């Protein structure tokens, strides 16, 4: 825009030119300040996000060098070899959606309770849901070792005659860990949506003879939809990259793609194959989210405000 000099400017007298000059100077100073403000974040994004992702994209087509690490090359071998980690993918693709679903089913009644049935102590109850989220994820996860290992629930069950129940290092343990870890993240956005619910709507619907189920379907659920959409997306995204829960509660028997990645990068040092695995994970995740958002949009929903 600065380069365009209006035809009048050429004929303008000296004072006009001066004004235009100072304006131009001010504008370019303003622009420089804007650039300066955006510089650190741009640098960070380029150096720590764009460049690293480009590098693993390139690596995923490369070959493993003899000592581990990366040797140049252009091959699809890594992608063709993905089948050797099929178990990790199938575990992730079963347990991540299932975990999200169980989280949703467990969280919805609590969010509804918080939004509709609580009065004065709502703020406290809400804080109590958030508190676990602010304490270390790792600590909260390993706490389940106490409960699920031999001296916990299995011992209790044995005392009522159910012997030999194994929980730790099974998919059930991982599922419990998932629900426990991500429940607050699901409750919160749903609560935020339901908070706006006008209770009189429910009363009116009951007065008009609607059953509880009808009210749920026609009033509460549509209102909760944005929160549900957000919660499901947040939990699902985090679950797709999960490593800790299967590592701590799955004991190497139930492993996610995340666990395969740790193995490939830190133990067997097969970077190109690991890169291909990572790229595939991200692609699958983006595809699922894309389809999910399309479906949601088709039914007229849209994600609500962020949680946290």
């Amino acid at each position, binding site marked *: 825009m600065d380069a365009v000099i209006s035809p009048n400017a050429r004929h303008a007298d000296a004072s006009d030119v001066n004004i235009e000059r100072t304006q131009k100077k001010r504008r370019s100073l303003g622009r420089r*300040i*804007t650039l*300066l*403000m*955006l510089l*650190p*974040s741009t640098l*960070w*994004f380029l*150096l*720590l*996000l764009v*460049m*690293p*992702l480009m*590098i*693993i994209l390139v690596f995923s087509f490369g070959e493993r060098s003899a000592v581990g690490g*990366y040797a140049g090359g252009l091959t699809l071998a890594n992608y063709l070899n993905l089948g050797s980690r099929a178990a990790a993918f199938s575990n992730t693709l079963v347990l991540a959606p299932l975990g999200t679903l169980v989280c949703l089913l*467990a969280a919805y*009644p*609590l969010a*509804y*309770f918080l939004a509709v*049935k609580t009065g004065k102590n*709502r*703020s406290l109850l809400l*804080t*109590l*849901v958030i*508190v*676990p989220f*602010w*304490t*270390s*994820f*790792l*600590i*909260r996860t*390993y*706490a389940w*070792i*106490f*409960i699920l290992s031999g*001296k916990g629930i299995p011992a209790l069950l044995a005392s009522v005659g159910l012997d030999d129940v194994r929980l730790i290092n099974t998919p059930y343990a991982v599922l419990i860990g998932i629900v*426990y870890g991500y429940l*607050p993240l699901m409750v919160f956005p749903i609560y935020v949506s339901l908070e706006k619910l006008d209770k009189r709507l429910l009363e009116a619907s009951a007065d008009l003879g609607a059953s509880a189920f009808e009210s749920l379907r026609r009033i509460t659920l549509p209102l909760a939809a944005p929160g549900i959409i957000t919660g499901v997306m947040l939990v699902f*995204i985090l679950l797709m*990259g999960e490593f*800790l829960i299967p*590592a701590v509660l799955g004991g190497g028997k139930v492993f996610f793609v*995340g666990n395969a*990645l*740790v193995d490939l*990068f*830190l133990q067997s040092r097969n970077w190109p194959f690991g890169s291909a695995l*990572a790229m595939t*994970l991200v692609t699958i*995740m983006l595809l699922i*989210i894309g389809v999910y958002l399309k479906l949601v949009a088709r039914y007229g929903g849209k994600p609500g405000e*962020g949680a946290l």
Partner: protein
Amino acid sequence: MWLRTYSTSLYLFLYLPIALIMLFSFNAGRSGLAFECCSVQWFGRAFSNPFIMEALGHSALIASCSAVLATLFGTLAVFGLQRAGGKVRMLFDALTYCAIIIPGIVIGISTLIAFISLFDLINPLLAQVIPGIPRLNMGFFTVVAAHSLFTMALVMVIVRSRVESLDKALQEASADLYAPPLETFWRVTLPQITPAIMAGFLLAFTFSFDDFIIAFFVAGPETTLPIYIFSSIRRGVTPEINAVSTVIIGASLALLFTSRYLQNRRSGASHA
């Protein structure tokens, strides 16, 4: 009625594991999984364990540095974007969502490889220019950098939503009363968004302090507290680790309630 019962049992579900850790940290016996009442010896042991204290120090320092960077860069970017054109904003939106949506484990892996490749490139050059200079390596700075990328995106989202919900009339009023732009910013805009900036900082700090997976990849020989805890529970849960966890849980509770107290006092209403 059943709703209340259900909610109560869900609260039990949420707090039972935390309560167990706290209980077991007062164990008088040596086993991590069997309880004998009661002793505080493990707290003493934890605090005199140099590895734990070193890891705690690293974690605190990393979390502080990365949260400061993230808050600074993120807030600057939000205000820069207010002045920038639509295309720049869209680009930044895309980058921000990328940083948030891409799993932490992939961020960890890719920054690990990027740093190693970069250092392999730079180290020989550096050694030629300044002989005897220590080699660049994975450690404190790489963790801070990787954490601050993700948390910067978080800060940007939080601060931006606050900035966009600001009442423009106040700024216009200030300008009408002949306040220069900088003064309007300092006395009108900034006080209104300070809570969002503080919330962003706290979230960034907590994320960095708790993060295991990114640090696991990029920390190199550096040990953070989550890395220490992870590697010790692999060898078996000890009362010492439970004691450390109890202290951390207590500290984060104190932090959370303080911040809520401050927030409530400031706005007079409850914000979650």
